[in-house]
């Protein structure tokens, strides 16, 4: 790591800590910043209500934001390198479409059996999580089976896109035959949410994301080789099919788990790898990897602060906020660094 990279890295760490504190201290209920700090270093703040809000709601949400940002950023990076395509993201293989299909079936058909999932409370959120995981897993299994059959990665990208369109169409058909309130329940799920996770759910969410991120870091070497394309990689001893398979599995674990718990969160996965590449001007995955994790966490915390509209009663859909805030950042970086497109061409 050279000096410039180190400087940016240090600023990222400081920014992350600041945003984390800010994220926890801000919300619809006003809690003084110094009280939040006091609470975080383990001291009593003498206000049960505030303590409950912090423990039960704000801290889990901040942790979720960090994991979602990092996880989606890394899945985007994995997909962009695997497909050597700047438009690839965590969901190009149809993971979110699969999850949407699962949830759509659960909500839209469940309601016709007289089950109102949003009225089931905690149990309802588990049903959504399970059906999203199941849908994502189903679509993904098909994609993985296909990936074992075909030789080149580009065909796989197209097949993934086709699956996405097909499942999207099935969801449309389901919506067409559904009642207005079921459609609304489904729409709310598609807005995404960081706030819904309980500590029980975090007990699954945290280790899955952490372990998968650690596992994915061990691909850095193969990912660097993949930058040169399938032929060169093979000639350097990379087993393409095996590498492709583990990249797909890791991406699915990250993006699938996140979608299951938080809904389909768009944009972050595509944008974060670009932002990181532009900031650090490198293609080396050993450097990109930690940077993507940090940038992803930072952007997600920031978006969440905006989404919860400090001082207001309501929160904006996180899915909209990420795109509204993220898009100008990417546009600004691309315009400022005119050689952006070159990081994807020879």
């Amino acid at each position, binding site marked *: 790591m050279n000096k410039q990279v180190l400087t940016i890295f240090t600023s990222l760490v400081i920014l992350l800590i600041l945003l984390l504190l800010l994220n926890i201290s801000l919300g619809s209920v006003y809690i003084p910043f110094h009280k939040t700090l006091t609470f975080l270093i383990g001291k009593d703040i003498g206000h049960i209500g505030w303590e409950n809000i912090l423990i039960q709601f704000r801290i889990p949400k901040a942790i979720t934001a960090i994991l979602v940002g990092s996880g989606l950023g890394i899945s985007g990076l994995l997909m962009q390198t695997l497909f050597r395509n700047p438009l690839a993201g965590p969901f190009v293989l149809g993971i979110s479409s699969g999850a949407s299909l699962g949830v759509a079936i659960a909500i839209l058909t469940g309601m016709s059996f007289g089950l109102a999932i949003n009225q089931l409370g905690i149990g309802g959120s588990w049903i959504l999580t399970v059906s999203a995981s199941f849908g994502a897993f189903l679509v993904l299994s098909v994609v993985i089976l296909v990936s074992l059959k075909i030789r080149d990665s580009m065909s796989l990208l197209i097949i993934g896109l086709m699956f996405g369109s097909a499942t999207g169409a099935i969801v449309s058909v389901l919506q067409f035959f559904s009642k207005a309130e079921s459609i609304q329940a489904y729409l709310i799920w598609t807005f995404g949410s960081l706030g819904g996770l309980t500590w029980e759910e975090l007990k699954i969410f945290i280790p899955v994301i952490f372990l998968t991120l650690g596992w994915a870091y061990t691909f850095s070497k193969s990912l660097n080789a993949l930058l*040169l394309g399938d032929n060169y990689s093979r000639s350097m*001893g990379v087993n393409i099919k095996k590498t492709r398979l583990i990249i797909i599995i890791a991406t699915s674990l990250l993006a699938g788990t996140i979608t299951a718990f938080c809904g389909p969160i768009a944009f972050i996965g595509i944008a974060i790898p670009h932002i990181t*590449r532009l900031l650090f*001007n*490198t293609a*080396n995955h*050993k450097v990109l990897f930690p940077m993507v994790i940090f940038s992803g966490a930072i952007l997600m915390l920031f978006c969440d602060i905006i989404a919860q509209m400090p001082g207001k009663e309501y929160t904006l859909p996180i899915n909209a906020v990420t795109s509204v805030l993220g898009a100008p950042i990417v546009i600004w970086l691309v315009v400022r660094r005119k050689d952006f497109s*070159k990081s994807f*061409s020879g």
Partner: protein
Amino acid sequence: MDHNPCVIELKNLTVGYRSTKKVIPVLQNINVNLQKGEMVCLVGENGIGKSTLLRTLAGIQPGLEGQVIINGKNIEDFRIQELSKIISLVLTDRIFAGNLKVDELVSLGRHPYTNWLGNLTPEDQDKITWAIEISDIKNIREKPINELSDGQFQKVLIARALAQDGDIIILDEPTAHLDLPNKISILKLLKDLSDHTGKSILMATHELEFGFQMADRIWMVLKNEKFISGVPEDLMLNHTFEKLIQHDAVNYDLSNGRFSVNHELKWQCNLEGDPTAVFWTINALHRNRWSITQEETNVKIKAVKIKNHFEWILSTDKKNITCTKIEEVINSLKHFQHL
């Protein structure tokens, strides 16, 4: 007959493509050897299957029939990691990572040797430094690859292949898109490598003139004929080479190994004088479809050297014209073309 050990032996090899329904052979029944330290040019017209053959030899694509034997062992019995320590490639594939730096790209050549994280040992560093120095890219090692010229980029790819440190380097058209000095410098670099490092170099190329000057051996693929292997000069003298360039637009002079464009000549004239001036005057006359003949014609040109410049005296039945440039000669001749 062979003094050197063979690094690649091809036995009845057929290469091509296999789909679920049919088998499409591209090149059939190839029997040829690549020796240690040899530089071989693989020549043949576009689309005849050179790249397919190279990919099969490199183990990227399976052969259809026959055997590829690398260092005495069948290629199918190699693990992909083992093979990568013997054969390295320079391909025409585009690389979609323009912000990759030159030394990072060269370092990727150490991929087969590094640990699971790809950390470079001092030995790896030494190999990278050696590869960068011998390929003459030391001055650009910090640059991102999208800032390189085509010639520099080709050298970087060769350096990467060298860092991979196999006994065999296979290159697919390494001099395509390069200007003349760069073409020659790349070929010279490869020739020096095979001489000094004992690496065997096999490249597909369309550089017939330079290839035949520098290669130890030519592998030639001709349509509807057997795969031919031989020392360039033998292929010249037994007229095999001419089959490769049989085309109406091309003239080939076996006496000096030169190619020229086949102009369809229409008119005749006589030419004599200073040899250097005559040489270039012929060049210009041919391009304008005038041939030179020994028989008497009514257009005679005499090129004379006067101090530092040349003059041409164009004489016809009617008049004499003195020209100071070939351009003037050509323009004056146009007048007679319609006669």
